[in-house]
């Protein structure tokens, strides 16, 4: 799956780190880094993290990959 965090919005509340620590990590006090394309079996975790983010900074893809026949 694919995600992107709008780090302009992110305020380092670390909710996402708490809920999906393999995907989101804080580097220091509030600099968030994350795995943009985590394994699909982490989807539930990541969706929970996105829902819990107080500023809605986590964007998850709404498609499972691109449409068939479409490149990419």
């Amino acid at each position: 799956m694919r995600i992107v965090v709008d780090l302009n919005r992110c305020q380092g509340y670390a909710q996402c780190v708490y809920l999906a620590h393999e995907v989101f990590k804080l580097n220091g006090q509030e600099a968030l880094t994350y795995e943009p394309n985590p394994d699909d079996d982490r989807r539930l975790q990541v969706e929970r993290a996105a829902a819990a983010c107080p500023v809605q900074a986590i964007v998850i893809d709404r498609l499972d990959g691109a449409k068939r026949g479409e490149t990419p």
Partner: protein
Amino acid sequence: MTLRATVAELVREFRASGRIVIVGASLAGLRAAETLREEGFTGSLTVIGDEAYEPYDRPPLSKQVLKGWVPADHTKLPRMREVDADWRLGVAAVGLDRVTKQVSLADGEQVPYDRLLIATGTRARQWPNPAEAALHGVHTIRSRDDAEQLQKALAEPPSRVLVVGAGFIGSEVASVCRELDIPVTVVERGSAPLVGALGGVIGEIAAQMQRDHGVDLRCGLGVSSLEGDSEGHVRRARLSDGTTVDADVVVASLGSIRNVEWLEGSGLAAGFWGVGCDAGGRAFDINGVVTDSIYVAGDVARAPHVLYEYQFLAMEHWDNAVFGAEVAAHNMVNLEPHYRPHLLLPGFWSGQFGVNIKSVGVPPFGDEIVFTQGSVEERRFAAAYGHRGRIVAAVTFDHGKWLEYYGKLIEQSGSFPPPPPGWDQPPDMKPMPAEFPDPRVPTGIPDVVLTGHAPSERTAEFRPRRH
């Protein structure tokens, strides 16, 4: 039919079966394509990109990817919706003919359009000496491939890395090297790191931060040449003060070049600073006349901003690409008076040495700075930039939660120094000079360029008045 009805019908028809071409298949290109579909455009959509990859995100490249945590190919951007486009990837646009409304591709094909979006971004400035640039171990970082190669080189690990240029990307590379416990030397021509973007006062803090983390930082110096061994691998750099640095990886982080060459001869206002456009993303031609069918977004665009005295801003920031693309796409399928302006309050973030650096507004527009919150010693603070008694920007180090407070003041052209936020106030709130380098001296590597007007770049043709 009335004229109004005819126009409405034309818009409907364009939305249903028009042809839109987007050149540049990255952040701005993808978000524009998605927005076009979101707004009900069902015509044909072609996205042309010279990279062979589907759109991916660049900010992770100099951070988690270099560190080796995230593989370079794990940066594909999420899709907000189906875009149902004809993707031409791995082929560059090489020309634009505005009369026949066609984009020519490197493979000889011509792609016709009714409306065109230019989103070709920027590329990394290469090491200026081609023979030296070709040495093994000399890197730049802009693309997925660049990041992959540099990450591999860092994993070796090298005995020392030399970073040339201490802008945001150079500083992030230095930070990753220290996290990986690799010795690193940073050479910066300006007086301190980040000085072009944040000024000398903040630059001094960034310099201290680098030194505290064991970076061998050398400011006010240039690298005059790189030397390789008999196998063509870089081994040493000679600095402008005559000293040398032994390094087996060199990262040239010398800023960027706007991808406008393919627009040569098109008659658009495209040049060194990017493609000029109005606040709605509509491109200007070389005479300053707005076009109807060509739009620009992202790093390659430069547009006037009402908060900054209508100076043309060129911004190499992630949110500018997202928002600019959304605005341009909206305007491509709407007519006046439904155009939207791209009046984003600029902002960016950078993670380095375990500190979250964020800014809103345009710091180089300010000439004064005042610390308003927190503690510089602890590297947790907020500072505001002022220009003629009004607040024009703010920067935070590990104080990101307060950015919104300053953002609001900037949007309202609030007074400078700003009213104290009443929390965590430093004892001394005296404004001081922000110490930006003279913009006419090409030293620092600004990420936002106040481009203004350059009479020497005059490309318009002036005709004598006829009687």
